[in-house]
Structure formats: structure tokens, C-alpha cells
């Protein structure tokens, strides 16, 4: 039996939020995920010569960028999980409202 009234109306509004979240967040996550591979494409900064402090700089750079790439990839996963969690709540509440 539908709950009706405010519940149904608010559920419709939540559906709008979900469209933002389940529609836009995966797009945003995909956009963020694309450059992760580029960041990890790092080869080296070496010239034909050798000087240890120069090697140390590129090791430090590579490590820092890898940390950023890892963080960005993780953020994308969390964004996707957020969208999925809201989608599931709406699906459940639609059932409670007799619409599911």
C-alpha cells in the first residue's frame, strides 16, 4: 500500500537528486579516472648522463605522482559507491511506497 503524501513527493525529489548523483557522479568519476593512467605513464627524466641527485629527484617525483594517482583512483571508486548506495535506497523506498 503506497505511503503517499509527503513520502511520495519527497521520494520524487530524491529521485531528482539521484539523477544528479547516479547520472553525474559516474560521469565525473569516469572523467577523473581517465587521467590516472596518464599520470602512471611516467617513464623517466634521465638524460644521457648521470648525477645521483638528479636521479633522486625523479624518484621523488615518480613516488609523489603515484600517491596522487592512487588517491585519484580511490576517489573515483568512492564516488561510484556513493552513487550506487543512493540508488539502492531509492529502490528500497520505492518498494516501500508500492512502486517497486
Amino acid at each position, binding site marked *: 500500500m503506497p*505511503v503517499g*503524501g*509527503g*513520502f511520495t*513527493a*519527497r521520494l520524487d*525529489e*530524491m529521485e*531528482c*537528486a539521484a539523477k*544528479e*548523483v547516479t547520472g*553525474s*557522479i559516474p560521469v*565525473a568519476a569516469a*572523467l*577523473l579516472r*581517465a*587521467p590516472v593512467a*596518464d*599520470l602512471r605513464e*611516467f*617513464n*623517466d*627524466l*634521465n*638524460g*644521457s*648522463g*648521470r*648525477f645521483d*641527485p*638528479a*636521479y*633522486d*629527484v*625523479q624518484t*621523488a*617525483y615518480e*613516488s*609523489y*605522482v603515484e*600517491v*596522487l594517482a592512487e*588517491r*585519484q583512483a*580511490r*576517489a573515483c571508486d*568512492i*564516488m561510484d*559507491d*556513493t552513487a550506487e*548506495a543512493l540508488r*539502492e*535506497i531509492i*529502490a*528500497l*523506498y520505492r*518498494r*516501500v511506497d508500492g512502486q517497486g
Partner: protein
Amino acid sequence: MGNWVSDYDIHMVRQYMQDAVVMMFDEGWLADWPGELVDASRRHAEMANSLEPQKIIDEFDRTLLAARTVGGNAEAVAKLRVAASSHLAGWTGEAATAFKEQLSKMETFCDNQQADLLNALQALLAAFGVAVEVRRSYHSLCLATIEAAKHEMDEQDGRDTKFAVALLGDLAKGVLNASPLGLLSGGALETLVDVGTHVHEYLAEDGADAVVAAYLRGAKQLEEELRDGLLSIRSCLLDHEQRVLKDHAVLFQTLPSNCDVDSPDFRYESFALAGQDRPTAGGLAPRVAAERDKYVNEKSDRDSPIGRRLDGDKGAI
């Protein structure tokens, strides 16, 4: 090929410089074989060629693209947060609040990530400046040494024995301390590094031994400058990395379990209608709890081997 001294030119000018100094020995201007210069200059050329400017440009372009993408996303996520938060305004409880906060954290994350990528770009910019200037300085030192050696042998005045050692430590620190925001607008790396004011004039001295000594002194100064500049860049990168690793605050927690329908922690009360819209007759909490149990069981059945088989997955059983 960019506007910098190539590896080939470094090797050639070092060889010409060595030949000029050895000629001073062969013709009796130097009493002793210049073995220290011959050995050390090979290492100096290796040092000058230790970073490849073109590779730094390639890495800069790749990272700049990523930073711009993240920044563009920050604007999109900001609009999304405003829209979604408005739609979620009629809902209350810990889970509803957590969702709203998560949207805000996404926006913050994009801003922070772009700032941290700009720090990486800034380090590359400093490395580029150092890589170009160490080549230019070493080339200049070798040319001045050649001219000074010729001056000793032919005693012609007017030879250009000046050379310039860039103050690479100051250069790197200057770039690292500047605001990185301008990097987003791009432009050629060559135009982003101001190196003109960081040059120290030097002059080779009279006497064959003094020519050798001046080369060794200049090369040592260049090595110290290069080491100072590179240590500054490395130190800056390590500091940034430590800070990022410590920063667990933004977005990196998944939503709490009471936001997850699959979790027994999920309750209607944690994601409930706010204020006057709250249903009163019978309360919704028991209906949501009962429906949640059914929903989770159905999902579990769907995920079971039998469920997957019924859904057409022939490999399920």
C-alpha cells in the same frame, strides 16, 4: 629540439676543451699532465646531461592535462553538489547527512587534487630550469676555458674568457616558492622560468695553470649549485608526499554502514523524511525494515549460484 644545449654539444665542447688544455701541455705551457681535468671533465659532462629537458616537457604536458581535467571536474561537481543537496533537503538523519557531506567532500577533493598536481608541475618546472641552465653554464665554462687556453698559447688579447655559472639553487627555490596557479594557463616551459637574473659572471685567469684551476673551480661551483637546486626540488616533493599521505580527511572514507541498504545498520531513521512530511500512521520504520529484509534476501538469491544460473549464467553451476 628545444632551445637548450644538446647532449652532443656538451660532449663535443668538453672534448674541444680537453684538447685545448692538452695542447697547452704538449706545447710546454703546462708543466704537468692535466690528468685531474681530463678525468673530472667527463664526470662534469655526465652531470650536465643528467636531466633531459624534452622528457621534462613531455611529463609536464601530461600532468598539466590531468590537473586541468580535475579542475574542470571540480566545477561540475560543485554544480552537482548544489543541485543534489537541494533535492535531498527534505531528508534527515545520519545517513542523509552523510550523503550531503560526501557530495561536499567530492568538491573539496577535486580542488585539493588539482592543487597537489600543481605542486608536481611546479617541481617539474624547477627541474626544467635547472636542466637547461646547467647545460648552458657548463657549455659556457668549456668555451671560456678553450678561449683562455688559446690566449695563453697565442697571447692574443680580446679573447672572450668570461663564463657564466647559473645560480641553480636560487633558481630552483625561486620557482618552488612562486604561486603555481599560473601554471594552469600553460605556455611554453621555456617562457615560464625566469633565469636571466640568476647568473654569476666569472673570468678565467692568466697563466696555463690558472686556466686549468679556473675550469676546475668553475665546474665545482656548478656541481654545488646543481646539487643545491636538485636537493631543493627533491625535498619539496618529499614534503608534499608526506602531507598528502597524512591527509586522510577528504573523501577517503567510504560512506558509513547506515547508508548501505545491504547492511543491517541501515534504518529508516537514518534516512528519513524531515519535519512535517514525516508520516505518522504506523510509522515507516517497520515497513522499511521489513522491505529491506526482503530486498536483501532477493539480492542474495540473485547472487547465489542458482540465481545466477536462472539469470542465464551457464557457468554458475
